[in-house]
């Protein structure tokens, strides 16, 4: 009951924020609505008992990535861009594609509801263990190599963004 209420309010927050993000004229307004949308997604993580991802979403997305976006918006002069057309010439093709894909998904979910039915959810393990602890167990045993590869990816991204943004190398 209370879960249902929370789900629909977070879903409304997420979708409303997303729609306003892609339709606002000013990039700063878009960034603000994106923060609302990301906070809604964080609430959905909490509803699904993914507490660690909730914290990561708030600290990293809302605190980190959005700060980066706002810095760049301040750095790059967007006043001139805000006065011009906001959508390109193919916007109606994009809209048709998106609506068609959405209709297709809805049609298949409706017509194949029997085939789409998911297996009943697994029962939670009786051992009471924190989400972060279980996550760390899996991450540092089963997924150790991808974890190390991710660190190389981040290193490459750091070097790449410095090279891109620097005036003269």
């Amino acid at each position, binding site marked *: 009951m209370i879960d*249902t209420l929370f789900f629909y309010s977070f879903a409304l927050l997420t979708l409303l924020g997303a729609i306003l993000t892609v339709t606002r004229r000013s990039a700063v307004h878009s960034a603000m609505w994106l923060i609302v949308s*990301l906070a809604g997604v964080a609430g959905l993580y909490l509803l699904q008992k*993914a507490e660690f991802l909730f914290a990561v979403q708030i600290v990293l997305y809302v605190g980190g990535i959005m700060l980066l*976006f706002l810095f760049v918006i301040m750095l790059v002069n967007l006043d001139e861009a805000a006065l011009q057309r906001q959508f390109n010439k193919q916007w109606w093709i994009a809209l048709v594609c998106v609506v068609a894909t959405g209709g297709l998904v809805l049609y298949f979910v409706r017509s194949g509801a029997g085939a789409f039915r998911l297996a009943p959810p697994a029962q939670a393990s009786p051992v009471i263990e924190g989400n972060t602890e279980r996550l760390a167990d899996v991450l540092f045993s089963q997924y150790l190599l991808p974890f190390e590869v991710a660190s190389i*990816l981040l290193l490459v991204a750091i070097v790449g963004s410095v090279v891109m943004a620097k005036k003269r190398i």
Partner: protein
Amino acid sequence: MFHPITTTHYLMLSAALLLIGTAGVLARRNIVIILMSIELILNAVNINLVAFSNHLQNMSGQIFAIFVITVAVAEAAVGLGILIALFRNKETVLADEVDLLKW
């Protein structure tokens, strides 16, 4: 009055978020907002992964969500760096004015 929330609800929400993000990527001209739409798409993927992680009581979904966030951070950093370099050279942030390679 209220139906209980199932995994299917989360999947439909994720599909809707993905479509909104796709519309933003395809239709907007401002590169900053295109990058924000990409973040929306990656978040839709994450909702999907966490929903199945909760459904199957398997932690792998949440691990993959962390990796998706890592890739999103790297993408945002490099993308915004490219944007700054572009603005320095072409004085524009509109995607359809960058048509040097177009015939």
